[in-house]
Every structure is written in C-alpha cells, then in structure tokens.
C-alpha cells in the first residue's frame, strides 16, 4: 500500500491567508493541501482559471502571481499568502477587453475555449518578460500551453498582432 509510510494520518487545520486577487484583498481559510488552482475555483468561485491536468502538463491553470506567469495547480494556496494574483477575470479593465482578449476573438484563437484563459494569461506573462522577439521564439515560449482543438496558429497570430502593437508604441 502506498500510504504505508504514514503511521498516523495527519489531520491538518485550516490556515488563514490573505490574497490580493485582481486588485481585491480576499481573506479566507483553507487547509494546506488546497492548491492555488482549487482555491480559486472551489473556494473563491473564480472558475475562469481552468484545470486541465492538475499536474503541470497543460498550462490551462496559468495565472500571474506577483507579475510572473505560473501554474496554479503546482502551488499551494497557503504558499501564496500575501501574494498578488491576476486571473483571467482580472485581465480586462473596467469592462474593457485587454487587447489580447480582443485579438483572440478576432483571430478565432480558440474553439472550445478551455485552454484560452491559460493561453491569454501566459501570453501576457510572456510579453512582460520581453524575451520573445520572433514568431519562433513566441511559439517556444508559449509551448507550455497546450491546445487540443488545434487553434495553435490562430493563437500565435493573435499574440503576434498584440506584441507587434506593443513594440510599435
């Protein structure tokens, strides 16, 4: 049995934590074993962040924590106490879509839409990193986000449009 090496099962207590999510401070209590992803989806009803594998294999759960794109499935909510988190629900401002969101619609950069929030959050993180200069580099640095419908070319087109837009500014 795989659980044999635990003599007496631990029963942990909830921890109080405070997260700034999309600019809003949220205090809540969760047990240590709650991933940031499940915390968002099940405890805060922010279901825009998606669970595609729960193991860091697909990128659907990508959120931006303290300015960096990370996988919310591979981090615990308790580890992010005090952090500032941006999810897909907080990408647009004042009801206006972010340019990437617009570009995704214009380029038909999704079909089922399930990987989309992760793709958009990841692309925002990537643009902020400023390391991708060419389409090939964009593709490489976006490769942590799988799309099963096969919207890949449209996704990269959408990102290229916005990224070029930014460099022109």
């Amino acid at each position: 049995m795989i659980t044999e090496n635990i003599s007496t099962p631990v029963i942990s207590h909830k921890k109080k934590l405070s997260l700034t999510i999309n600019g809003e401070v949220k205090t809540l209590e969760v047990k240590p074993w709650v991933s940031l992803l499940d915390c968002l989806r099940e405890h805060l009803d922010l279901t825009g962040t998606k669970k595609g594998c729960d193991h860091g294999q697909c990128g659907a759960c990508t959120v931006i924590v303290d300015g960096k794109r990370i996988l919310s499935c591979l981090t615990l909510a308790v580890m992010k106490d005090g952090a500032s988190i941006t999810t897909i629900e907080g990408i647009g401002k004042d009801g206006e879509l972010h340019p990437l969101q617009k570009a995704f619609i214009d380029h038909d950069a999704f079909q089922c839409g399930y990987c989309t929030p992760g793709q958009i959050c990841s692309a925002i993180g990537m643009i902020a990193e400023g390391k991708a200069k060419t389409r090939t580099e964009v593709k490489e640095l976006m490769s942590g986000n799988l799309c099963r419908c096969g919207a890949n070319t449209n996704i990269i087109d959408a990102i290229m449009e916005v990224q070029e837009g930014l460099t022109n500014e």
Partner: protein
Amino acid sequence: MNDFNYTRVYSMDEALANVSLGKGHRVIAGGTNLIDLMKYFITTADELVDINPISEHQTIEELPDGRLRLGAFATNADTAYHPLVESRYPLLNRAILAGASAQIRNMATNGGNLLQRTRCYYFYDINTPCNKREPGTGCSAINGYNRTMAIMGTSEHCIAVFPSDMCVALAALDAVVNIVGPEGTRQLPFADFHRLPGNTPHIDNNLMDNELISSIDLPEKGFSSSYSYLKLRDRNSYAFALVSVATALDLEHGLIKEARIALGGLAHKPWRVQEAEDFLKGKQASKTNFEAAADLILQGAKSFEFNAFKIELAKRAIVRNCMMALDPDTQQPGAQPSL
C-alpha cells in the same frame, strides 16, 4: 495527496532543524515536482516545510574570485535570464530554457532542479513494481517499454534517467554544489552529486536527508565563445529529452584547448567521459575528431528492447552539437537542431 501540516521557515537554521526531524518533513520550494509527486501519492509528507520565506540564497552573485554563485532558491528563469549567466554562461542559459515550460521555470528553483525525480513511466505508476519507488519490488522498465530509459550506467535494479536539462550544463561547466547540514557546510563537485542506481536506485543523489543545498558555484570560465545545447525529444518543446548534449569548447587557432561534453537523457545522472574530453585536447575542431570522441563516450553503452536507437542518436547528437558549438549563433529556440 495525503493531508499534511504546513510550516514556513525564515532561516536556514530553522529549515535544517525541521528537516532533521525525519522523513515525514519535506522541504518545499518551487513545488513543481514535489506537488506533482504528492498528487500521485508517489511521495507523502506529514509536514511541508516552506523555505520560500528564507531571504538568503535567492540571488545570483559574483564572488570576489570571479566565480558565480547561483542561490539554491533562485528560480530557473531568474537564473537563465541573469545578465551574467546570459553573457558568461550562455550554455547554462540555453539548457535551462530547453527544460519544462516558461511557467514552470518561473516557479522551479535551482536546488529543486538538482533534486527532481525521474520521469520513468513505472516510477510514476504506483501500481507497478519499481525499485526506485519501492525498493526490492523489481524494475518494470528493464523488460518493459523502455524507449525513454538509460543506456549508460544502468544496473539490474534500475534503468531510469535523470530528467534535468539544467544539470547537464552544470555538469559540463564543472559546477560545485554547496550543502549545509547540521555539521556545517560542505561542497560536492557536480559529478559527485548525483548517483548511479547500483543496488540503491531509491537514492538519487548524495545529499543527506538532514541537509539542504544552499547554492551552486560556477567556475569563472564560462565557455561563452564556443558552446551549444541540443535537446532531442518526441516533440519540439515541453517534453523530456531522449538525448541532450551540452558542449563547451575552448578553442585556440582552430585547436581544442579544452572540451566539455555532457549528456542528458542517457543515464541516472548527467554523463561525462573524461577520456573523450582528453582525446579532444590539442586536436582540430573537426567532425572526424568529434566522431571519435562520441565513440569514446558511448563505448560502454548498453541498450534495451526499445532504446537501442539512443546509442546512434547520442553519437550523432554529440557530433552535431560540437559542430553547432563552433557557431553558437545558429542555435534554435528550444535547443532544436540547426545548421
């Protein structure tokens, strides 16, 4: 994932005190491997000790003697994109960026990269025998689907490979691992950090249970003129290596003063063969000489039912990567083959 308690620690002393409490206490840094393993019940813990609040070992610093110290708790991304890494150790930059995904590199730490577990299918399936996961149960890979498995340094107990890219470059660059433990600090040359499976495949490396990695030192020499990292895998990105090669050359008038060739995806640790590097010393940087070196590196290779291709692939990859090292600007994103 079993239930566990969670503690934040704020100093190395506090962290060491926690890990010395025994096996049920596990350190969590980036979490990218540990949480994955815990969700599969491959690893369990009574208490997770979060070392992220420790302010030390988070940075990349140049030491007075010219060495570069990579904090164990710095992320892979911060390390790869550090200006001194980009300029002086571009091989390390390339290797880190060939691993995992951008999101994972933003989370994973340098110390964690050294300590990641194998991706062997059977290790990951808790319902199949695996000596690494459950010593004494047998190795399912030896007679199983072993396309991804090792061809160097295997034992009858384990043929798993170590999955890191970063460590292949660290091995090539002769890095040194700084370790702190209850007795103080110690250093391990990179080549001595990871172990071969032998008859103890459950022990991946020579870090004791009550020790922590504090940093990794790189010697001043960074091979920034002639270097290349090549990673061959079943898709162009976000996949583990079947074969990867880190090459660093020091050239003078077309002759090789010093050569470093380390391989990933072939063994339980990054693989280097001194004899081959010695052979290249003083020779022309030519395809023929690289081929001879590749033969020396692979001479002890032993393949299994589905991975015989790795021997020839590794030879060709070494030669190609050495040629690419002569013209590092031709390297492609994702450490894909060029030229």
